[in-house]
């Protein structure tokens, strides 16, 4: 099957790649662009490990076709820290709170949590748990993740 030339923006950089029309955005990010921070946990939109933002909207990149990225803007875990390496407060708080173990779900959860805090800078614990309900973690039991998000939210609001 012939491939389609896709021109898009990833983490602020102009990029292009040749995609098989059946390839997912996740496949394209990982296999064509070498951005392996987004993970495939299930490939069916259940686990959230592939979460990225497409024009600011949180999506499971395994449920988006690569060719749909044409002309759009994508944000992945690789673009979360500043170019100089300074971590986003969420990343720093995840380390401080030990909110990760194996780390496979962590990129997806960080991308999703950042989207939450941009929409709602002061979420309640319930709101955080509901927002992150689409991100499965089999190690942590979630509690430390919630505390880390709350702590990062407080810092971003200037309350900590």
């Amino acid at each position, binding site marked *: 099957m012939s491939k389609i030339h896709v021109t898009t923006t990833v983490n602020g950089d102009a990029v292009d790649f040749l995609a098989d029309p059946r390839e997912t955005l996740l496949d394209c990010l990982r296999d064509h662009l070498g951005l392996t*921070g987004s993970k495939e946990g299930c490939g069916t939109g259940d686990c959230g490990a592939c979460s990225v933002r497409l024009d600011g909207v949180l999506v499971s990149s395994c449920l988006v076709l690569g060719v749909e990225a044409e002309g759009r803007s994508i944000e992945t875990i*690789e673009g*979360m820290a500043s170019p100089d390496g300074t971590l986003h407060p969420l990343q720093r708080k995840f380390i401080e709170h*030990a909110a990760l173990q194996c780390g496979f779900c962590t990129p997806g959860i960080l991308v999703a949590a950042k989207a939450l805090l941009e929409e709602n800078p002061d979420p309640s614990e319930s709101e955080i748990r509901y927002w992150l309900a689409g991100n499965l973690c089999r190690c942590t039991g979630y509690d430390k993740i919630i505390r880390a998000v709350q702590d990062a939210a407080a810092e971003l609001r200037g309350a900590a």
Partner: protein
Amino acid sequence: MPKDEIRSTFKYIGTRPNRPDGLDKVTGRARYGADYAASNMLHAAVVRSPHAHARIVKIDASKALALKGVKAVVTRADFPEGLTGETWNLQENTIAGERALYDGHAVAAVAATSALLAQDAAKLVEVTYEVLPHVTDVDAAMAEGRR
């Protein structure tokens, strides 16, 4: 003060060290098995049994192997024979022998130059099954005459 925040005179006990793999894992830099790629790397797809219990009569991989870019199809015939004990058990779980023992039991695997091609080729592997009765609980599985 919570007990885990009490500073002692120990170097590590009673402190809250950051885990050494934390930075790589929050930045997406940590490398897992599926994150590795090599030049000329082949991709695999597994053909799985659609039956809970079935005798494998025949596996015809000729259509799959005819696709350009398909490099190999392996079946139980490519595995060692005569294993016993735990190594036999592991092999039996890895790939079906005479019989598929559950819905999803691997019966063949395809290696090809791309993941999509491997998946296409896996669909072309023709497996002829003779469906056998299956059991759904341990008591029935242990009943007289079962194997």
